[in-house]
């Protein structure tokens, strides 16, 4: 069970959280001017990175806030967690596609 550092509540066990998938994917608008490519990319295409990935979590059984995290998907170690709206930290480290 992962130990996740909620930016609001501090380190908490995984069962308090919900996973929100890849982070920093903006929802394109307005609908009539969004191309099919952009829309399918928003809905479905994911980097699915092997290495450090920016991803969303929600502390649903805690402060209920969504936030972002950098996690190495080859080790499941977190490099950083940060609030929505904050820029992605450089702690990223090297990544493989």
């Amino acid at each position, binding site marked *: *069970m992962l130990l996740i550092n909620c930016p*609001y*509540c*501090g380190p*908490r*066990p995984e*069962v*308090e959280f919900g996973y929100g998938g890849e982070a920093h994917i903006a929802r394109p608008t307005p609908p009539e001017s969004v191309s099919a490519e952009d829309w399918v990319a928003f809905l479905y295409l994911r980097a699915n990175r092997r290495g450090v990935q920016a991803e969303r979590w929600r502390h649903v*059984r*805690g*402060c*209920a*806030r969504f936030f972002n995290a950098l996690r190495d998907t080859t080790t499941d170690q977190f490099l950083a967690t940060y609030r929505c709206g904050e820029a992605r930290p450089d702690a990223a480290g090297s990544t493989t596609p």
Partner: protein
Amino acid sequence: MADAVQARPPRIEASAWLQPLPAATRLSFCGDEAAQNAAAIALGLPSSRTPCRAVSTGARASLWLGPDERLLLAPAAEQATLLTILGSALAGHAHSLVDISQRQLAFELCGPNAALLLNAQCPLDLSLAAFPLHMCTRSVYAKSEIVLWRTAADRFHVEVWRSFSDYVLTLLRTVAREFPPTHGH
């Protein structure tokens, strides 16, 4: 016009380690910091900006559940008063105030095994160092969401949605059987 009916809150059996808490006024209050402060002042509570901490004056308490979310607790009789006070204090502040008095119910776990009873199915570190006095937070007990509030070294105030209360209490009683009664709850 028919006779007035009586409210029938769920009954919780008390035991050495379990104390039901009386019906209460519960308000889910959301708003920015200004609104939070205005509410605190109106209720005569210190402002509660520290994450996962409860502040209380007398029987009124404000539990930090999220950066813009508080659970306001007060005696049942104060409901109307509270709504009036807050109504006027919050005029002009963007906020949300929702009555959830009967969405959930509360009980107290007490005694030397209180933390152990909880840790059977609650994954938090409940040592005083990690979960000090007045700490409060949403968490889980097995498959139920709870709000946990430490009101004394060996006492926890637990809030649980009413339809989950049977599940949580049954589980607690199962766990309690693991402790020899001599370990006086």
